[in-house]
């Protein structure tokens, strides 16, 4: 037995070693050399490699079928749309279109296109390519590609497709006037149209690449070979490789039509926990990361790391469910508003630089006005109002989420505690109810009537007032539990106005109307932060995360 097993063991070991050697014989290192690259391109300078951590893997690399920030992050580097944003703002600016003119009725837009632009596969970007993209979006085949899980922005902005369940589309047609000019026709006025085109979802993509690698028939378009291995745009970086859960690698597009990137290479890695991202930066494993936890800021700054704030483009609010009595009484809502000291809440739970909110849109959105009813912190007045409403012994369920940080809600538990103690100071009994953010909390707040007052908020996608007010109050919902047809129809009308100029006074009115009606209390617009190693230069934070990395360098 002993002899048999020893021999057996020897054979096994030999076989294992042999197979290893065999594999080694045919495996090659894929390294390209020293790693400092071949610094060509217009600048001559080599900006090195930039390792950046996001919070998760992208869902897909075809931005049309994405709506999450992690999918848009690489899309901003690989692709460009007709419209971009002015650096550091949410305002539309020329990108692949150099200029545009709306028609008077707001039903058609003419775009002049940038000349001499090529996709990464060498094909031309021109009028034909631009219209092909519009038609591609409109002709998305029925199936998973037509759900809000994928073509979210097309559905929410353009409403419908050529065929399938949703056919009432705002989009009508795209005509190639010449190779440098196209005209897009809409079926109804849409003032946010140009700003909407700055979303990465509406990036220009290569027809040749999609026809070669794209999904066929009923296949999931967000997981095609194109969307995982061959994304092809016109941007400053070219896709190189993607190992899921590990890293996404992009390299400089040396033939970029704009300012050629300084960096040779970009590596985007997923690290889920904010604290783990900070640890990785401090350990020198990465050069920068997004979504900095407020608790990590002091320790990063102490060590000499850079913190960059994005201009706030979000809003955190305390919502009232008017289906629960006595929250349907305006005096009770006003009383709660007077009971809350927003400054104290901000100091207790939000990053430095956060301003209290006056209304349900942040300051840089069209229609923002300082001329709205304000509810100053006044506990005595709050008590009087409660007495007047016969609600001295008010008992309220207070819902808040756990296991989550959002740009607008960096620390929900602390925000809850600060507000809770203020409410108790005016004699309100608070019944805390905590739920896990997704799906439990969201389910309860927006899918059921079973909640009292709650914390929630929103980050804007692009510069459009409807993207805030319309999302919150555009229709009766179980989140707010009220029916206010006057408000609903005002919002529908405002959305249909042909230009932003015409919308501004209307949205100012709506903001006033909302703050008198007081469906909830806008609390603050916390500033989201990025962190970088001391040697990273040239990163310009954008409120809508439109941050192309061609000017970034690592020295």
């Amino acid at each position, binding site marked *: 037995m002993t002899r048999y097993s020893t021999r057996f063991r020897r054979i096994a070991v030999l076989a294992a070693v042999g197979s290893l050697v065999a594999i080694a014989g045919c495996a090659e290192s894929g390294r390209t050399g020293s790693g400092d690259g071949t610094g060509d391109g217009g600048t001559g300078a080599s900006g090195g490699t930039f390792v950046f951590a996001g919070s998760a893997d992208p869902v897909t690399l075809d931005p049309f079928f994405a709506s999450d920030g992690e999918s848009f992050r690489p899309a901003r580097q690989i692709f460009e749309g007709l419209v971009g944003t002015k650096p550091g703002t949410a305002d539309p600016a020329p990108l692949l279109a150099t200029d545009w003119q709306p028609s008077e009725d707001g039903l058609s837009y003419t775009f002049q296109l940038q000349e001499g632009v090529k996709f990464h596969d060498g094909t031309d970007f021109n009028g034909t390519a631009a219209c092909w993209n519009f038609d591609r979006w409109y002709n998305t085949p029925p199936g998973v590609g037509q759900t*809000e899980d994928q073509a979210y922005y097309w559905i929410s902005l353009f409403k419908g497709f050529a065929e399938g369940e949703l056919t009432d589309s705002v989009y009508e047609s795209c005509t190639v006037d010449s190779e440098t000019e196209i005209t897009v026709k809409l079926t109804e006025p849409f003032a946010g149209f140009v700003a909407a085109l700055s979303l990465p979802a509406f990036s220009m993509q290569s027809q040749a690449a999609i026809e070669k690698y794209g999904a066929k028939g009923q296949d999931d378009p967000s997981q095609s070979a194109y969307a995982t291995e061959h994304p092809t745009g016109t941007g400053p970086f070219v896709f190189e490789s993607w190992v899921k859960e590990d890293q996404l690698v992009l390299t400089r597009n040396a033939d970029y039509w704009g300012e050629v990137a300084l960096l040779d290479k970009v590596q985007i*890695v997923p690290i889920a926990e904010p604290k783990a991202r900070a640890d990785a930066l401090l350990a020198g494993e990465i050069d920068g990361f997004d979504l900095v936890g407020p608790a990590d800021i002091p320790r990063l700054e102490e060590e000499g790391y850079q913190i960059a704030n994005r201009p706030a483009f979000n809003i955190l609010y305390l919502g009232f469910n008017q289906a629960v009595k006595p929250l349907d009484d305006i005096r009770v809502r006003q009383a709660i508003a007077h009971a809350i000291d927003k400054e104290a809440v901000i100091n207790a739970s939000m990053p430095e630089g956060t301003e209290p909110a006056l209304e349900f849109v942040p300051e840089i959105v069209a229609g923002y006005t300082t001329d709205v009813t304000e509810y100053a912190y006044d506990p005595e007045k709050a008590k009087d109002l409660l007495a007047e409403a016969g609600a001295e012994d008010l008992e309220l369920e207070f819902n808040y989420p756990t296991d989550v940080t959002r740009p607008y809600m960096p620390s929900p538990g602390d925000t809850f505690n600060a507000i809770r103690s203020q409410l108790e100071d005016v004699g309100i009994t608070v019944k805390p109810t905590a739920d896990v953010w997704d799906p439990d909390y969201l389910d309860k707040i927006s899918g059921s009537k079973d909640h009292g007052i709650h914390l929630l908020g929103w980050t804007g996608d692009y510069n459009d007032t409807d993207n805030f007010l319309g999302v919150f109050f555009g229709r009766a919902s179980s989140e707010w539990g009220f029916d206010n047809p006057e408000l609903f129809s005002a919002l529908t009308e405002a959305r249909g106005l042909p230009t932003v100029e015409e919308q501004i006074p209307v949205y100012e009115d709506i903001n006033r109307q909302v703050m008198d009606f007081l469906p909830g209390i806008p609390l603050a617009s916390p500033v989201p932060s990025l962190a970088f190693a001391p040697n990273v230069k040239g990163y310009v934070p954008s409120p809508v995360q439109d941050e192309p990395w061609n000017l970034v360098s690592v020295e």
Partner: protein
Amino acid sequence: MLRFVVRRLALMVPVLVGLSILLFVWIRSLPGDPARAMLGQRATPEAIERINKLYGFEDPVVQQYVTYVGRLIKGDFGESTRNGDPVVTTFFDQFPATIELAFTALLFAIVLGVPLGYWAGRRVGGWLDNLIVSTSLLGVVTPVFFLAILLKLVFAEWLDWFPTSRRQDARIEATHVTNFYVLDGIITREWDASWDAIMHLILPGIALGTIPLAIIVRITRAAVADVISEDYVRTAYSKGLDPAIIRNRHVMRNALLPVVTTIGLQTGLLLSGAVLTESVFEIGGIGRYLFEAISQRDYPVLQAYILFIALIFSIVNLLVDVSYGVIDPRVRVS
């Protein structure tokens, strides 16, 4: 022997079918709705309804199960509802990360556990025995995630001896062939990549391996203490046999049987512990993916992953049973 293996494999089929039914019903009875989880804050009633219809989440559970089995027979385990990835592909992409971690943990547990258990077992009641037994008790009761966070804090953040998270430094730019990062470095001769991957495995390996280590110590100790008092050991000593031969052939070999059984049973523990360890150390293996799938009600991923894990557990334990025959001739005869 062959008949034994075939019979055991055949027995696995009803077990897995039963498990798949239980899983299917259990997952669907969890509160929360996958359509809402998919859409997050952007969910509207209409969008939820359309997704439920398209994915068949609203059909009767029996009908959903029949559809599911129909696809399963064709080898189609479905796609993740979170990101559309085919479940089987992601499982095999992520599996190497978990295997590397589990292997490191097991290596740590065995290499340290068996000798420690042996020393303790030879001198039951001695000071070394007392020390080992009480320390191992501490190991058994320390929760995996607590130990993981503690190790990371002390050895990665304060002392800076090890990397804080992930499987490999992105700057290494390693070539990946098999997705076993240590192995990849060896076969492509990127030695720094292998070394870096090993450094990344040490803390999570210790965190995950501590409970198995403690259990192996205790089982080995008991088995050795048992065997050492057997008549044949005393006889061997009294006839003047080399103590080294007694230790290896007579004591260890006979004590190994319960130890091997225990190691087999640890696979389940390792795989469940991997869920926590991978989350703490940001390792992209099946454990972390499963954890995310639970919170997102990702039905296809939950079903397939739990089923695969059960299958692995059954196969490992079958291998353990087979190994009895190699270790102990008495089992082979019966």
